[in-house]
């Protein structure tokens, strides 16, 4: 790595490097336990710990941890109800888990010396691909072949069909790409900027106080973005789900 050769060189990408913690192989496939896996496990444990803490003493008047659990529950439940309606109830566990997982990954990644799971395209693309396949299956199961009518909106003149249909198909197929790249790029860019500013602080010595102020501001922004990107990912999932359940709207 470059930072090993020249200690002062800012290397904002190094923090995304994956290092093996334990070698595991199944056949030819390398499924080693890496720092990425480590933080996936930490995220899962953190969320489960929070919910176990919040749900250990269930009372009519909630304590702080119960309040956190109930607020997040209500937040996602309202989101799902507003975007999908009552039919969305069946998909609530998935959407809720998705939001909590992405949000906690983003947040935990903001702690110095940690790893951001969601900054890797394969992770976000796995989510987006799962949602894409799931939504497409739900669309065909609920609407049959009528789901294909979605690519040819009502009221469009017939002579426009050769243009409209390919555009609709392309926009449908690019949904998982935009969904995954949006989250991953935000995490990548945000963390890189933090790293670059942090490097400036060291390089400028006493005057490092100026980039420090900037760093504090950007860090606050990144905390906000950590929430915002999890929210955007979730709400887009809800919207795609709604398109699959009610394609004619």
């Amino acid at each position, binding site marked *: *790595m*470059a930072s090993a050769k020249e200690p002062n060189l800012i*290397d*904002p*990408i*190094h923090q*995304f*490097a*994956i290092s093996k913690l334990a070698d*595991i192989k199944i056949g030819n*496939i*390398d*499924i*080693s*336990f*890496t720092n*990425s*896996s480590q933080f*996936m*496990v930490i*995220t*899962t444990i953190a*969320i*489960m710990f929070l*919910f176990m803490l919040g*749900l250990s003493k*269930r009372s*009519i008047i*909630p304590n702080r941890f*119960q309040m956190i*659990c*109930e607020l997040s*529950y*209500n937040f996602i439940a309202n989101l799902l109800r507003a975007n999908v309606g009552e039919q969305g109830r069946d998909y*609530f*566990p*998935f959407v*809720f*888990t998705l939001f*909590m*997982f992405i949000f906690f990954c983003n947040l935990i990644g903001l702690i110095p010396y940690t790893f951001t*799971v969601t*900054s*890797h*395209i*394969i*992770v976000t693309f*796995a989510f987006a691909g799962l949602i894409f396949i799931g939504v497409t299956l739900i669309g065909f199961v609920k609407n049959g072949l009528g789901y294909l009518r979605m690519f040819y909106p009502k009221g469009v003149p017939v002579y426009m069909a050769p243009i409209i249909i390919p555009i609709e198909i392309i926009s449908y197929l690019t949904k998982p790409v935009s969904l995954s*790249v949006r989250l*991953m*790029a*935000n995490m*990548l*860019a*945000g963390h*890189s*900027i933090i790293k670059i500013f942090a490097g400036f602080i060291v390089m400028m010595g006493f005057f490092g106080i100026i980039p420090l102020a900037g760093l504090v501001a*950007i860090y606050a*922004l990144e905390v906000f973005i950590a929430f915002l990107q999890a929210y955007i990912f979730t709400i887009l999932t809800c919207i795609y789900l709604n398109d699959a359940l009610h394609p004619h709207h």
Partner: protein
Amino acid sequence: MTFFWKIVFLVSIILWPQIGFTEGDGLPQMDITTFPSQLFWLIITFGILYLFMWRTAIPKLRNTIEERQDKILLDINEAEKLKSEAEETLREYEEKIQSASKEAGEIINQAKIKADEMIDNIKKKQDLKLSQMLSESKDRIIKQYEDSKDQIENAKIESIKLISAKFLTESLDDEDIRKEIN
């Protein structure tokens, strides 16, 4: 600023093979050899979290929230019931007070009437007694007057007898004298 950097990184991702960030290592995100491991552990961790949420956390949360809503509804119903009961009691109380004051007024009126009657009776009795006493004393006066008249007549007769006995030989009869006097 952040927007600018995001654009820079997006362009970098697209042009990654040409530019490269760190001595040709490239973005760690593009290292395909790490993909199976990431996917494997993602499926395991997310699967466990999903099962936990689906089977444990969400039903518990839903129950808690529903229980609370039920409790609130019950409490509101009970409060409304108690309120209506309290209003009923207040109305009854007011009615009782009104009827009691009416009764009290009636009792006072009756007492007044009774007292008036008693006063009238006493007055009448007293008047009767007075008039009786008056007539009795009148009678007595008349009797005495008559008695004294008789006595005076007798005395007159006696004195005339005495006088006449001195002047006349024959004694006069009482009846004759009476005739003469009257």
